[in-house]
């Protein structure tokens, strides 16, 4: 498992990443965590529907997103709000979606990020098709898909990996191995030594990185992105991380894991280690932390306000999304529904 920055914040080898970028990504992780924590409390207040926390996975998501160009495709899941926001998906739309509103699935025209996939496994092949299309159209865009360890058990993972390799599509398979598929630990999901090893079955390079190590994640994702962009084909990246929170706000992890395990996991926090690193280089101060956390709070609060300002959907909301032009049946049913 490749690591650049230890949990204690020391650099194991020279990183090509400049400190100003590291500071930018550190700030992004801080914003993401506030978004995550705020989402949980909003859900408790009944202002959001079920929420799937990503605490502990900020390094993986922010590091991966940072390796993309703005016009590269991102195809992510219900747990990837940090990555999606970092790729330009407006935070207010993430909140809006979580209130239970389809309007949260419509990013601006210049944000090539699909709405989060709720089904596990089905979305990876979409990133194959998106990248494939870019190549057919002569664009130099790549497509990165995020998914979890559990998704690698679905047949669709196999078909997506195989198509990507056979057709050498510019696709990056970014797996966040956060230890569990709801209650099932990775050791009971597969007998392969690592998830990265699965790339062998497709003649695809597979790399395993410390997913809580922002620098390692960024470095390897960038390499995979460049490889894809150059036409050399797909890469599987296994980012080893941990889901600090419950599977969703409905889940009770005590049914399947120990507090000790969570305590140990917390010592590997992806944000703390970057803070320590920056501090050691004199790039981190309490004042700056104060500044960015206040900024983060403002960003999150503004996004919530914007999301909650969206009026309740009308009856037409159900019908208008179905086709470019409503069918006779839908027009008729919309009338009945309105009556």
């Amino acid at each position, binding site marked *: 498992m490749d690591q650049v920055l230890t949990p204690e914040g020391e650099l194991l080898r020279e990183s090509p990443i400049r400190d100003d970028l590291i500071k930018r990504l550190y700030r992004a992780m801080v914003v993401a965590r506030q978004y995550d924590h705020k989402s949980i409390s909003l859900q408790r207040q009944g202002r959001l529907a079920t929420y799937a926390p990503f605490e502990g996975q900020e390094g993986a998501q922010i590091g991966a997103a940072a390796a993309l160009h703005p016009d590269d495709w991102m195809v992510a899941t*219900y747990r990837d709000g940090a990555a999606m926001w970092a790729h330009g998906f407006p935070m207010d739309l993430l909140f809006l979606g979580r209130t*239970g*509103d389809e309007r949260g699935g419509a990013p601006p025209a210049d944000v090539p990020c699909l709405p989060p996939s709720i*089904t596990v496994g089905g979305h990876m092949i979409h990133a194959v098709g998106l990248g494939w299309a870019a190549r057919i159209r002569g664009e130099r865009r790549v497509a990165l898909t995020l998914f979890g360890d559990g998704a690698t058990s679905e047949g669709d993972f196999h078909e997506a990996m195989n198509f990507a390799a056979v057709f050498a599509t510019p696709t990056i398979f970014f797996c966040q191995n956060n230890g569990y*598929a709801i209650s099932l630990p990775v050791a009971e999901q597969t007998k392969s030594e690592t998830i990265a090893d699965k790339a062998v079955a497709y003649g695809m390079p597979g790399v395993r990185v410390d997913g809580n190590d922002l620098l390692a994640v960024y470095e390897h994702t960038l390499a995979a992105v460049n490889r894809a962009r150059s036409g050399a084909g797909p890469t599987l990246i296994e980012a080893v991380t941990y889901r600090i929170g419950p599977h969703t706000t409905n*889940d009770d992890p005590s049914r399947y894991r120990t507090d000790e395990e969570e305590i140990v996991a917390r010592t590997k926090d992806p944000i703390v280690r970057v803070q320590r690193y920056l501090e050691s280089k004199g790039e981190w101060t309490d004042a700056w932390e104060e500044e960015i956390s206040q900024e983060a709070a403002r960003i999150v609060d503004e996004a919530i306000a914007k999301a909650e300002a969206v009026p309740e959907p009308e009856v037409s909301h159900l019908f208008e999304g179905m086709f470019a032009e409503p069918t006779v049946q839908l027009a008729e049913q919309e009338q009945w529904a309105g009556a």
Partner: protein
Amino acid sequence: MTVLTLAQALTAAHATALAADDSVVVIGEDVARTGGVFRVTEGLLDEFGPTRVIDTPVAESGIVGAAFGMAVAGLRPIAEIQFMGFSTPAYDQVVNHVARIRNRSRHRFTAPMVIRIPYGGGFGAAEHHSESWEAIYAHTPGLKVVTPSTPADAKGLLLAAVADPDPVIFLEPIRLYRSVKEEVADGWTTVEIGKAAIRQEGSDVTLLSWGAMTKETRAAGERLAADGISSEVIDVRSLVPLDADTILDSVRKTGRAVVVHEAPRTAGFGAEVSALIAERCLYALLAPVRRVTGWDTVFPLKRGEPHYLPSIDRIVAAARSTLEEG
């Protein structure tokens, strides 16, 4: 007798089946450790052990396909799909293998298994968690399709499904898991698959529904009664085989019918019920059969839900219209 919710009745049915028959196994995602998303299989792991209560990787086709192999080998698997929206990856196994092995092998091999699928909306869930796809299973020859709406039926139908020599798609109305409580017989008790239940006798109009919609349908019946309209309320319960006699006898008596379901309207199972009624008792019909259904749209997320699900008002209005016309 014990007072149980529908979910508790299902748990009891599992425990009863596992205790009564060594060949019964429970298999699915998170069914063992956590007792399932809805806790329906809660406690079974402790009582019956990991050999018979099995947590699987996230792979629906694998779950159904492996359970199918187990059934062919003589076990009686109860496979759980976490939500109906996630039953599609297993659809090929269900349609092309589970439903067909008996015919393909002329009874030499069979698949006595139950596939449990929580279904339906109304609880503000994420996308894919509120689907009602009963019609796509009912249209598949070789499957039985049942859905309970009371705790007693939940236990009785599940045990009947486990004992059935053929595969049964067992649809569990999520919205009713905890909303109803009633006395349920202890031990092994069954409800015959293929029989509808008349929940309320009446003479003016027949109201037909199944699953979670039975709740609004019964309420509509009460609302109509308050206005002096006598409705016969039928819980279809078993879509395949369908209890046509009970349905047709009722409509011959009332001359009017309203079919209610939350699945999309076009080619929903309500079309079969409506067609059956009009084809078999046209001359007894005093008014056109009315369908009160979900729309031909994707099931909406939480905020749009109130506009989607058939309401008591819509059912009452449809029933009234059949009286005004005829």
